[in-house]
Every structure is written in structure tokens, then in C-alpha cells.
């Protein structure tokens, strides 16, 4: 009986997993089909051809190498900066009796509840006003700004629950607030930081909206808008787009595999706090 149950569980879960993974498999299959095959038989048919040329085409035509570099140039500093700043803010708010700290925290969180779409035009105008329109710096700043509220909120929840005694002991040993932050609190917050880092990496890397809002030069576009560039005005080579998508997914998949454990942890942080 128990055995049957286990078998049933595995069978049904395999079906569910397959349904989840099927669209991705489909994209991978399309990415190896030739244009004439797709055009003649349609996207839905079984492959009648096999080619690697789509990957070469995506790499060259969408200039994916440069686009990936741009993406990383934006994502890595944005993740480091926003987590660094958020952890300092969370440290102050969680560990010290700052007046109006609840208000500050709520204000930061409120900013996150605003749909980003309504801020598109103000931001593009503001970035232009200060002369940073069409630069990667602007994009980094936007990502840091938008991430800060949520990251602070999550880290605040985590830091608040660290035992008070540790901090008191450090104070007695003569450590100032800066030292306590860097030597005591930060190391203890590492699991939360790793989880947030992995999450924010995928969020920022996969962003499309902000990159097309503050950047207008083709050669500065990160990889997501570059992929859109593979779409023609009317006609799109779906096989090449599929290949480009597969390439663009590599960094996030790599980060996911490396920080798999923290991902799950990260989701739990959001759920409990």
C-alpha cells in the first residue's frame, strides 16, 4: 500500500514537473530548428531539421556578447550596492532606537507598493535632467533605488531577531556601531544576504522595463532588450530568438545552481517575516 502511494506520488509529480518544464524544452527544441523548417511546418510541429547556426546568428546579430557584458555591468554593481546600503539601513533601523524608525521603514515599503509603471515618465525625465540619460549608471541607480526598500525591510526583520546579548557583549568589549555592524551583525546576516543576493540578481538581470526607459542606444542595451531586437517589425525568426533566449538564461541559471539552497531560504524569509 505504502509502496503504491509512493509510486503514485512520483508518477503524478513527474507529470506536473514535465508540464512545468515543457515550455522550456519546447524553446530549446525550436532553437535547434532551421528557419525554413519553422516557416514551412509552423512552430508547433515536430522538428524536421537540426542546426547550430541559430546560436551563431543570435550571438552575432543581437550582439549578445556585448549585451551580456552590459547586463553584468549593471547587475553586479546594482546587487552589491543595494544590498550594502540596505544592510546598513536595516542595521540602524533594527538595532538602534532611531526616532520614527517605524515610519521610515513603512515609507520605504510603501515605495515598493507603488506600481513601477506610474514612475516611468518621471524617472526618464529626472534622469535626463541630471544628465545621466542613456547611461548604465542611471540604470544601476534606478535598480538600487527600487530594490532598497524591500531589501531593507527583509534584512530589518532578520536583524531584529538577532539576540541583543551579542551586541551588548560587543559594546562592552569596546566596539563602536561601525565595528559591530561589520564584525558581528553582517556575518550573522549572511544567509539572508545570500538569499537576497541571488533573488535580486535574477530580478535585475531579467529586467526589461527600466532598461528601455533610461537607455536608448542600441549598444548600451542589456540582454533582455537586445533579445527583443531579434524580433522584426512584422516577421520574427523564432528559432534565433529561442537560441538567444537560451544563451541569455545561462547567467541566471548559473547563479541559481550556485545559490540553490539560498533561493529556497530567500523565499521563506519573505513568507515568514
Amino acid at each position, binding site marked *: 500500500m505504502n509502496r503504491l502511494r509512493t509510486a503514485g506520488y512520483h508518477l503524478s509529480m513527474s507529470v506536473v514537473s514535465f508540464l512545468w518544464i515543457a515550455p522550456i524544452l519546447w524553446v530549446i527544441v525550436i532553437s535547434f530548428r532551421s528557419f525554413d523548417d519553422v516557416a514551412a511546418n509552423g512552430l508547433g510541429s515536430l522538428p524536421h531539421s537540426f542546426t547550430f547556426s541559430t546560436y551563431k*546568428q543570435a550571438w552575432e546579430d543581437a550582439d549578445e556578447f556585448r549585451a551580456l557584458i552590459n547586463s553584468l555591468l549593471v547587475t553586479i554593481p546594482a546587487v552589491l550596492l543595494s544590498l550594502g546600503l540596505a544592510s546598513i539601513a536595516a542595521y540602524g533601523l533594527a538595532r538602534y532606537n532611531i526616532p520614527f524608525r517605524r515610519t521610515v521603514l513603512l515609507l520605504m515599503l510603501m515605495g515598493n507598493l507603488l506600481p513601477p509603471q506610474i514612475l516611468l515618465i518621471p524617472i526618464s525625465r529626472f534622469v*535626463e535632467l541630471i544628465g545621466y540619460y542613456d547611461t548604465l549608471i542611471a540604470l544601476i541607480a534606478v535598480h538600487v533605488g527600487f530594490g532598497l526598500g524591500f531589501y531593507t525591510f527583509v534584512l530589518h526583520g532578520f536583524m531584529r531577531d538577532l539576540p541583543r546579548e551579542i551586541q551588548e557583549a560587543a559594546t562592552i568589549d569596546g566596539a563602536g556601531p561601525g565595528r559591530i555592524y561589520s564584525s558581528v551583525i553582517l556575518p550573522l546576516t549572511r544567509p539572508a544576504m545570500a538569499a537576497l543576493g541571488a533573488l535580486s540578481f535574477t530580478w535585475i538581470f531579467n529586467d526589461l522595463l527600466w532598461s528601455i526607459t533610461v537607455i*536608448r542606444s542600441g549598444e548600451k542595451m542589456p540582454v533582455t*532588450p*537586445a533579445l527583443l*531586437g531579434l524580433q*522584426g517589425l*512584422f516577421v520574427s525568426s523564432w528559432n534565433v530568438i529561442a537560441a538567444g533566449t537560451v544563451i541569455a538564461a545561462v547567467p541566471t541559471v548559473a547563479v541559481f545552481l550556485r545559490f540553490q539552497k539560498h533561493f529556497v531560504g530567500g523565499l521563506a524569509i519573505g513568507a515568514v517575516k
Partner: protein
Amino acid sequence: MRNDRVESGQRRREQRATGELSLQSNLSAVQAKGAMEKLVAAYNKTGGAQVKLNTVASEIYRTQLPTYLTSANPPDVYTWYAGSVADSYAKKGLLLDVSSVWEGLGNYPKAMQTLSTSSTGEKIFVPTSYYWWGMFYRKSNFAKWGVTPPKTWDEFLAVCKTIQSKGVPPIGIGLGDTPWVASAWFDYLNIRINGAPFHRDLLAGRGRFDDPKVKAVFTKWQEALPYFDPKGKSFPFQEATSALLGGKTGMFLIGTFFADSAPKDALDDIDFFQFPIIDPAVPVAEEAPTDGYFASKKAKDPEGVKKFMTWLATAEAQEIYVQSSSGTAIPANPDGKSADTPLVQKGKAMIESAAELTQFFNRDSSDALQPTADAALTKFLDKPDQIDKILKDWQAAAEKVFNA
């Protein structure tokens, strides 16, 4: 700190202003992008201001164009469409007056001049190419089914009947993701039944969609509805092209851009016929969407921009583009040579013999009105018996757009 930034921003602007024109292009498809690069390289060899091409994905371009134009430091020249779409930007005072470019364009047809003139009488647009719409089919399939291209509506319905009797849906369409394709049917039925002037007035807000004359368009459409491919609602037009080429549908009302999604060996087998004539008393009009360029009013070097646009209007420049792009576009300059294929020659002859030209629903109205048409036409295809209600809703939606 902030002052510093503003200054550095201004410095950046000044640096850009020196001797370089920026050309913002939405032609992101591989072939078209290559053609644009060749075009710009050819101009840069002629001396004068160097042009820097910046290609942006067409989907992004469509949504960001208003932002580009209204920004403090806008790009100089833009690829876009002629007609009321361009005029809507001119009305907001965003476009450069290029009347001086037009002084040398006396050989352009009257219709192109009208399309390039704003409502205040300034020339704001330089057309460089156009394409056409037609009822496309595979010659081999028509031969197999024993049908010949029809000329009138009755002949057309007879052809549909024959193809259907062979077990093939006669009329292909692709509306999933690309609902605007249905507007071609509305446009053509309207210009065949009520004529181009009525169509233009209607789309400009000077008519009503619940007019009995508009209803007549839909009652005519109902006669052909049983012949539409029932699967056409679920896939985009690119898949509908595959269906046509694979012999799973008989004919397809579409613009020549579909040829880019056809395998090269199938292209020789493709032909088209003119949308059937319904009322011989109505002057024949055809859809000829016209592409070209306009420039920003804030262009840093207006003379350089005009010089570049004058060059774009030459037959020589347009041939460079047409030859290296997919080859179904026709140069706007009457002296420009189009591709030599029989298909293109036939299309060009059809457009040249037309008494009136329209462009396409969105280009003759606005990008804001197009979704109202998509909603109405999709609903009509689903529930053809509710014409009156659909037209009433359409009029209400259109009024909102016109009054906005």
C-alpha cells in the same frame, strides 16, 4: 553635488552636438538592419555630417517614440510612417519643417505629397518606400484546385466555394497576437463599398462607426465569413503564412512583409490578386503603407538633417535600401528601381494604377484608435450576428479616443 551633475549633463549634451547626426531606427530585423547600415555607410562617404545609426527593437521603439521626441536632447532623425500618424506629432510641435527638402521632390506623386504634409501645411515627412497589400496564394495550389484569380466579389465567393469543396479553408487569417490583421479586411471592404474619402473621414473622426454605410461593410463581410479558417483566431499571422504555404488555407489578405517569413523556395510559387471589386462605380483604391523619415524640431543641426533627408529622398539612396532589404519594398521616388521580380512589378503596377491610396487603419487614424478596431473586429468574427451592438460600442470607444 547636484549642480555638478547638471553641468556634467550639459557638457555631455554639447559634446554630442558636434558634427554628428543621430538616426533612430526601428528596423531591427536582421536584413533590414543590415540594409540600414549599408545606407548610412553610403551617406557617410558623401562627406558632410556623419550619421550615427542607432537601431532599437521595433516593439520598444513603438512605445518609446513619444519619449524620444519629447526628451530634452532628442535624436535627430527617425524612421516612421507617413500620414496622420506623423501629423499627430507635428500637431504637438515636435517635428522639423522639411519643406525645403520637398522643393527638389517635384517628381513624387501627389498622394505622397499629401501624406507628408501636416495639417498646418508644412512638409514634415520624407517618404522613402512603400509596400502593398493583396490576396496572396500559391500558384500551384490554385492550379491543383482548378481556380483562377477572381476579379469581382461574386467571382471571389465562387472561388471560395470551390476551394472549400476540396476540404481546405479558403481564407487564411492570423489574429492571435496580431489582431490588427483583421483591419485589412475592414479597410478594403470599406474602400471598395464606400470609397477612400469616406474611409479617411471615418478614421479621422469625421464620421460615425454606427453609420448604416459602415454596417453595409459588415453585412458584405458576413458573406465571406463561412470561408474563413476557423483556426486563424488562435495563431499569429506568421503562423497563418505557414498555413498558406503548406496548403492548409487557400488565400491570405496580407501585406508583402509576410514574404520575409516564407522559405525562399516557396517564394517563386507565390502570387497575389487585387482585393475583389465590389461596386464598379467606386474609384479603385489600394492600401499602400508608406515608410520614411521625420526629424525632431530640436535637431542640433537642422541644415545637416535636411541635407541627409534630401539624400534619403534620392532614387540612388532608396535603391541601396531596397536592394539590401527583403526586396518587396518599392522606392517612393518614382525614378527608383524596385526589385525586378514579377511579383514586385505587378504590385507596383497595381498601386500606380489606383485612383486613390490609403495606408492602413492605424496609419490613417492613430495608434490609439487601432485597439478599438481590434476589439470590434475580433468580436465581429466571434459573433457576427451582433453587428449593431458591436458598432455602437466601437463608436463609443472611438469617441473616447478622439476626445482625449
